[in-house]
């Protein structure tokens, strides 16, 4: 029986605490008597027979959906949309959940005599996946069966003939999605729900939607009113996605949603200590830490990235549910909450966290400063339900080297965003009004997005909007060990050590502040009472 997550009050006997520091680690001591640490629950047991579980889910759908076989018939057009490389994190060992699900769906389609089947990677405005990434997600059998004939595609939001406008929601939101999906007899969406933000109507409303549609919920004001991204009932972004998803359904697009969750068994050996509580480290764990930390500190950054890019997480499918979108997603959230929620009493003055090597947008890439901001203020800050972990006006202390480094192929518009936009303003509302459209419609970014492996020109703005709630809420952000120039460009303050950072934080929140350390990943959701 896995142990639940819990909150540790730091006292004199508490050992130094692990902080992620990009592709490195640090041990830090937090002040006793006023610090606490939130540990995630231990991983739940994975499904013993995921193939059987998938098949069961397809045959016993939730909500008002028919079992999948009864939705399949000869001559129909079937489109299978699947989550892209932003999930899961880190990438999982083969077979990936998507492979297991897609193979099961294809088997049923074949049994039903469905010939017109197209697979679409639900990129939204993310970069295209490489062949290796597609093979990893779908397996070689699916790739080899569909890619050569052009039936394995990747969504192109800028293909004029590839998207169709389905009208607007009652809130005036444009609904423009993949033409192939919109004109199919059935769309099957295959998801991996790593965190509560994922899934539900958001899958289609982002995965196969154009900029024209996405801008209605991926914007500064919506994200300022998304509290939090992990709590869809208090998220303006999800409310918009739900309206769009319902409009898609009302437009006659039939969707069969398949959502999976993973357990939180996140790190393989020799990094097992990363998932443990420090006082339970064995001698072997301590030796592993020392060996890994010192070796990584001596390793050039590019090589460190290569090492971590090769990490394949041991997490495995923990649940699978299929059928009508909303019913499926409610079930998914229940599974997620069961394995990720940690009750936390009250807010803190200072929240500390270490940002790890990977986020959704730097898989096989570089975590540039904008992604560091998004990872900390966008994602980790939002790992809450109820109230933010840190009080309004409080301080966030982030551990990350924050190098002034960008992947020129994956993130070309990020470089320009960093050079042109951030020096002028870090206000998401101001930058949206002044610069977003120019970046979103820049023909060079469009070209790179469509033909290369670049995130869409507007994507850097979305990363900053992801921070909008935190930027409004916090009294300051301090980055420990970050490259000062890059940190300042983000509008944050650099600190050399955790002690310095805590002293700087005191200037904002007062002397002897309460401190909470978010010990993640593995991921958790703080249920702040």
């Amino acid at each position, binding site marked *: 029986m896995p142990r639940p997550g819990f909150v540790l009050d730091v006292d004199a006997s508490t050992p130094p605490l692990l902080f992620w520091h990009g592709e490195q680690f640090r041990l830090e001591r937090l002040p006793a008597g006023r610090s606490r640490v939130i540990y995630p629950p231990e991983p739940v047991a994975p499904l013993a027979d995921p193939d059987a579980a998938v098949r069961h889910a397809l045959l016993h759908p939730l909500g008002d959906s028919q079992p999948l076989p009864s939705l399949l018939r000869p001559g129909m057009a079937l489109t299978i949309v699947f989550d892209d490389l932003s999930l899961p994190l880190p990438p999982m060992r083969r077979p990936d959940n998507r492979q297991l699900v897609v193979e099961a769906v294809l088997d049923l389609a074949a049994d039903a005599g469905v010939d017109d089947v197209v697979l679409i990677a639900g990129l939204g405005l993310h970069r295209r996946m490489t062949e290796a990434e597609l093979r990893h997600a779908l397996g070689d059998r699916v790739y080899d069966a569909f890619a050569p004939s052009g039936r394995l595609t990747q969504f192109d939001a800028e293909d004029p003939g590839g998207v169709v406008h389905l009208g607007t929601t009652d809130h005036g939101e444009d609904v423009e999605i993949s033409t192939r999906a919109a004109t199919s007899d059935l769309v099957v969406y295959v998801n991996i729900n790593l965190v509560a933000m994922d899934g539900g109507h958001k899958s289609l409303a982002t995965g196969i939607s154009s900029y024209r549609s996405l801008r209605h919920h991926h914007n500064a004001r919506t994200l300022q009113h998304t509290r939090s991204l992990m709590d869809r009932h208090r998220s303006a972004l999800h409310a918009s996605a739900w309206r769009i998803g319902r409009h898609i359904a009302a437009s006659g697009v039939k969707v069969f949603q398949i959502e999976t969750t993973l357990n939180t068994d996140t790190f393989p050996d020799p990094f097992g200590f990363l998932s443990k509580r420090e006082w339970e480290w064995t001698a072997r764990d301590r030796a592993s830490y020392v060996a890994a930390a010192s070796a990584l500190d001596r390793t050039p950054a590019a090589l460190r990235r290569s090492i971590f890019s090769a990490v394949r997480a041991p997490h495995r499918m923990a649940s699978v549910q299929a059928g009508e979108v909303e019913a499926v997603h409610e079930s998914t959230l229940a599974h997620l909450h069961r394995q990720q929620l940690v009750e936390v009493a009250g807010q803190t003055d200072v929240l500390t966290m270490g940002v790890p090597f990977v986020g959704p947008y730097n898989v096989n890439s570089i975590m540039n400063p904008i992604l560091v901001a998004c990872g900390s203020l966008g994602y980790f800050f939002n790992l809450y339900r109820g109230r933010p972990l840190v009080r309004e006006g409080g301080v966030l202390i982030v551990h990350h080297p924050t190098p002034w480094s960008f992947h020129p192929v994956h993130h070309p518009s990020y*470089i*320009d965003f960093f*050079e*042109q936009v951030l020096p002028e303003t870090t206000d998401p509302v101001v930058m949206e009004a002044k610069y977003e459209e*120019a970046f979103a419609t*820049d*023909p*060079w970014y469009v*070209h790179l997005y469509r033909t290369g492996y670049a995130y869409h020109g507007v994507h850097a703005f979305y990363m900053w909007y992801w921070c909008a709630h935190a930027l409004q809420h916090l009294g300051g952000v301090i980055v420990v060990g970050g490259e000062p120039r890059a940190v300042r460009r983000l509008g944050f303050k650099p600190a050399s050590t955790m002690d310095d950072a805590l002293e700087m934080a005191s200037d904002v929140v007062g002397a002897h502040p309460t401190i909470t350390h978010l010990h993640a990943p593995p991921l958790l959701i703080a249920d702040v009472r």
Partner: protein
Amino acid sequence: MVERSLARFAAARVGGSRLGPLRLATGMDEPAPPGPGWHRVRPRLAGICGSDLATVDGRSSRWFEPIVSFPFVPGHEVVGTLDDGRRVVVEPVLKCATRAVAPPCAMCADGRTNLCERVAFGDLEPGLQTGYCTDTGGGWSQAMVAHDSQLHPVPDALSDEDAVMVEPAACALHAAAQGPPAATVAVVGAGTLGLLTVAALRHLHAGGRPPGRVLVAAKHPHQRALAAELGADEACRPEALERAVRRATRSLAAGRQLTGGAGTVYDCVGSPASLAQALRVTAPGGTVVLVGMPGPAVVDLTPLWQREVALRGAYAYTRADFQAAFELAAAAGLGRLVSARYPLERFRAALDHAAAAGRREAVKVTFAPGKDR
């Protein structure tokens, strides 16, 4: 004073200005006004220009040899006082009118006195400008001479600092006008000339020239801040200029080569690297204006050829430019660009400061000879 010494010019090329032809001359006779219409000018402030530095460092082109006369006292950015107490700015070009050449050459007759064809002839020894002519003296001194045709009275409201910027501002105004108006304009370099070119472009826009987006490549943070204050739409690090121009023009890129570019680019540095960068960011059919004083250069001119880019020099100014520069100096408060004033005795420190102006957060370094007395 700069003396004719090939050995010293050669030594300066290797060892810098300390080994060069410049020395402090004491006990010299003040230059006498050579005739009617000439006046003694006592410099109040005299700027150190990039071309001065190139001269004392031995880096300037031998092109100038026939059109200068030794020994000469440098200093062509001068605000001074006449014997009657009036403050004046000296327009240094030694044109036909100044040299008593009659009839004037075709260029002077056309008002294009900066292109005078008689700068080695007439009543004066050769010298394209005051500060390069043995007869006139120069601003880096206690006294020099200037002709009526060179004098511009300084309005009381204009400070000495504003006034000493009039001459380089006139250069910038003249240069800005040499490039055709364009939707996107790039300025390479943000030393004195680069910053003044930005100010000049905005001045011309205010005067009715079609406005364009002005991008500036500036090496140092204070230069970027000043460029923005003077009207640049975007000031970026030099290595970011290509990206900035691409964004502004919504150009595509083939490899690192832009398919489009800025319609007009001002090279305010004059080095092979700056010219090469200017050519990289100029649109097909566009114009590069060479503002900074160049020297011998090895530059790949293939983009100039393949994209039919025009390369145009911009030297000095006309009288009209000079008069307009007074307006610009006052309107833009150009005196704020004066970062330091040195007595003549500390000329080595002054030259070191000017040579490292960017790194030392300075723009215009000047001599204040009047303060010696």
